[in-house]
């Protein structure tokens, strides 16, 4: 599959992986050639992370095989994969660094671990080696600094430097620029350019169009566990790649935009932080607004302002004509504003609880008299939501951990739909769920939307297209565009999302338009 002139370093043939009944990878065939940057694009749940985790030894494939430089490659652990030459920089930065150690120890951690490393640490040599590694990628940090004192971007660069110090055959970067500024990202790209010349095979995972335009030699699009498109002829067909990534899902869900009711939530001149431009937004009853934007575009910040977790820097928020300044989630819930948080594992699911206990958690007063819980009332509400959302389970007394990710997410959404709200905010409600669960959740959200205002935060554009009456785009912690969800101009939205407003030509090589 590789183009002539480039040797395939890593070949993936027919790899499959399932978690329970959920088939995440359905036969992936993929070659990663040396000396090229292969960009892997795909929506959430497309299977990118699972594929990466198989390559770096976290998961084992159920079927198919992988070859590395012609030899069979079956990593059994991350250490094994690294030893074989497959090095990964993960998306969550803190997996890559140890905050309590200094920069030098972080950079040289693998040497400290290596067999034959001396019993005593030679501080001077450690620092010299660390300086060499840092210098190789123009990393301008005093190696004696504690990593805990550094910002996110610097930590990310350290994690990358550490990966490069291992002299990998295959380098996998999972959304490496999501926390980098434009200058830092450019420094990374320069480094990748240099690395490409040395013949390393680079697999770069991102859906940031500006990154992809800057560095991609080939684009592989993934969708629902399969390769949905391969693009390697210059000039690269970026729009084709986006279409292959999104598939035709957007045309399958027909949005009937209903007439909207009176305004429920009005943001006036709200600044999320001191640097952010002020923004205005009105959300009406019987309206579903999708807010989309990249990681760090301010979506989560806006959600936490609405739910009383943080306060906006300035501006007023009105709810039903009254000034709305919630001081805590408790306060927000009392005013009828509910938030279904993103990252259900850390922010939503109570692992020790069964379905009913998880679902009724915020509204226990409704299921208790004189503080004594009424199990029958809890079960009735839970069964109603199980039916409404199509949660696959034996009964409401199933432990939450026995459910698949999609069904767990349905329980989380059901938690906040079980009671009537003024404003329902859902932050990434489709995170890590398969297409069928996504449709079930989306349908239920739309079907029950008439009595409230609904805001859905999604990073993926196709999810926004599937659920919203109106799509609002955020970038740099403010609103940069609004689109009614009929015949939307995808390119215009994508340009606003990546902060390259107005730049719609596919080959625009202008990464610097993203302000730091």
């Amino acid at each position, binding site marked *: 599959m590789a183009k002539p002139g480039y040797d395939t370093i890593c070949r993936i043939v027919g790899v499959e992986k399932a978690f329970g009944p959920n088939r995440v990878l359905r036969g992936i065939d993929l070659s990663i050639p040396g000396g090229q940057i292969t960009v892997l694009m795909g929506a959430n749940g497309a299977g990118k992370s699972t594929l990466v985790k198989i390559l770096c030894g976290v998961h084992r494939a159920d079927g198919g095989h992988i070859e590395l430089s012609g030899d069979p490659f079956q990593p059994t652990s991350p250490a094994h994969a690294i030893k074989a030459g497959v090095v990964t920089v993960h998306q969550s930065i803190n997996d890559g660094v140890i905050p309590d150690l200094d920069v030098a120890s972080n950079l040289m951690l693998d040497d400290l671990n290596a067999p034959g490393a001396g019993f005593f640490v030679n501080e001077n040599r450690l620092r010299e080696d660390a300086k060499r590694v840092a210098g190789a990628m123009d990393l301008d940090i005093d190696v004696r600094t504690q990593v805990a004192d550094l910002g996110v971007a610097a930590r990310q660069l350290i994690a990358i430097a550490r990966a490069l110090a291992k002299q990998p055959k295959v380098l996998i970067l999972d959304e490496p620029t999501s926390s980098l500024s434009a200058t830092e990202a450019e420094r990374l790209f320069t480094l990748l350019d240099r690395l490409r010349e040395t013949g390393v095979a680079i697999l770069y995972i991102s859906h940031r169009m500006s990154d992809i335009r800057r560095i991609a030699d080939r684009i592989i699009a993934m969708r629902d566990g399969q390769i949905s498109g391969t693009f390697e002829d210059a000039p690269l067909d970026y729009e084709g790649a986006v279409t292959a990534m999104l598939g035709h899902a957007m045309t399958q869900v027909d949005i009937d935009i209903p007439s909207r009711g009176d305004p429920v939530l009005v943001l006036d001149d709200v600044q999320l932080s001191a640097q952010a431009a002020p923004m205005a937004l009105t959300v009406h009853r019987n309206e579903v607004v999708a807010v989309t934007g990249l990681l760090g575009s301010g979506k989560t910040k806006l959600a936490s302002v609405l739910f009383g977790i943080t306060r906006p820097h300035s501006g007023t928020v009105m709810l039903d004509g009254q000034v709305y300044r919630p001081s805590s989630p408790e306060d927000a819930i009392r005013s009828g504003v509910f938030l279904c948080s993103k990252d259900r594992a850390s922010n939503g699911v*109570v692992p020790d609880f069964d379905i009913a*206990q998880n679902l009724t958690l915020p509204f226990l007063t409704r299921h*208790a008299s004189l503080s004594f819980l009424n199990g029958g009332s809890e079960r009735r509400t839970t069964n109603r939501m199980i039916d409404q959302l199509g949660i696959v389970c034996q009964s409401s007394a199933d432990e939450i951990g026995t459910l698949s990710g999609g069904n767990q997410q349905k329980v989380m959404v059901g938690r906040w739909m079980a009671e009537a709200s003024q404003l329902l905010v859902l932050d990434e409600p489709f995170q890590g769920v398969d297409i069928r669960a996504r449709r079930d959740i989306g349908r239920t959200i739309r079907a029950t939307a008439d009595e409230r205002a609904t805001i859905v935060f999604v990073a993926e554009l196709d999810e926004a297209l599937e659920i919203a009456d109106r799509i609002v785009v955020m970038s740099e912690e403010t609103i940069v565009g609004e689109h009614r969800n009929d015949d939307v101009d995808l390119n215009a939205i994508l340009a606003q999302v990546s902060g390259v407003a107005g730049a719609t030509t596919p080959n625009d090589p202008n990464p610097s338009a993203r302000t730091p």
Partner: protein
Amino acid sequence: MTTDTRSTDTGVSRPLPPSVDRSQMLMNLAIRYGFLCLLLGLIVFFSLAANGFAGPRSAVFIFQSVAITGILALGVTCTLVVGGFDLSIGSVATSALMLSAYVMVVLEQSALVAVLACLLMGAFVGFINGILIVKMRVPDLLATLGMMFLLIGLQRIPTEGRSISTGMTLPGGEVAEGTFSNAFLWLGRHRFDFVLEDLIPVPVIVFLIVGILVWVFLELTRHGRLMYAIGSNERAAALAGTNVNRYKITAYMISGVLASVGGILLAARLGRGDIASGNNLLLDSVAAALIGFAVLGAAKPNAFGTAIGALFVGVLLQGLTMMNAPYYTQDFVKGGVLVVALVFTFALSARKRGGGH
């Protein structure tokens, strides 16, 4: 519930070979009822092997030996439920012991004043623990360890390190003339008639009442539910609108008050402010709460398990004592029980829960 746990693993039932099904079922039965069966087996064994073990007097003796430990253990259970830990309970109990003696013997106050002072002290210490943990962000083990040291030292200062009893010479030179009132001693020494005359001592009744109250609070009320939610996933509980800080502070206050109740009962039994008493209280009660994880396969802190855990240790020690095991083997036996219970909880139950995503 135990019969169909296999099929809930994936949410979709899959046919399994019957042998796998049966061994799974046995495993689940073992996790759920293993510890209770062991307790029952022990009782039967000692009844046959040790003369006089079976009988109301012996049963009451066991209850009496674990009552104070059990009350403290129920308190620490509440802090374990919210994902915390309270190392200060032992020292709160001994502080209450010294405080009640000081109030009655030195300040010459009534039993009621002594009891109220102790309960207030327990609530206050729990409140400070909670504030240290919630507001000052001191990790729970360290905060309550610090409090433990503080109290061990504090309780010795007023009497310059000596025990308190009627007729003792105070640091100022005068003689303490107050006495433990009869009403106070009643708390530790009175026995109610039940089947036999003068059978059940007050501390056992208090233990049973506290056990039922804590169980009802944790299992049946929404407050208990929210405390379990906090212990399982604090962020999720907070984002569901739970006032996490208030519940955590409450848990430490419950723990402090129950520890002081234990101290009051101990003082009433001893009849003097003995500076050397209560050394084992902390370890014994923490062990009871941890053994409780294994009861009914709960794999989490729970009031019923804690009470059973305390009784288990009591039965074992009483039985061994009656079979002439020397006293110095007691801690060894307790340690053994604790390790077995922890294996029950973590190795076996974790295996049952594994296979999730």
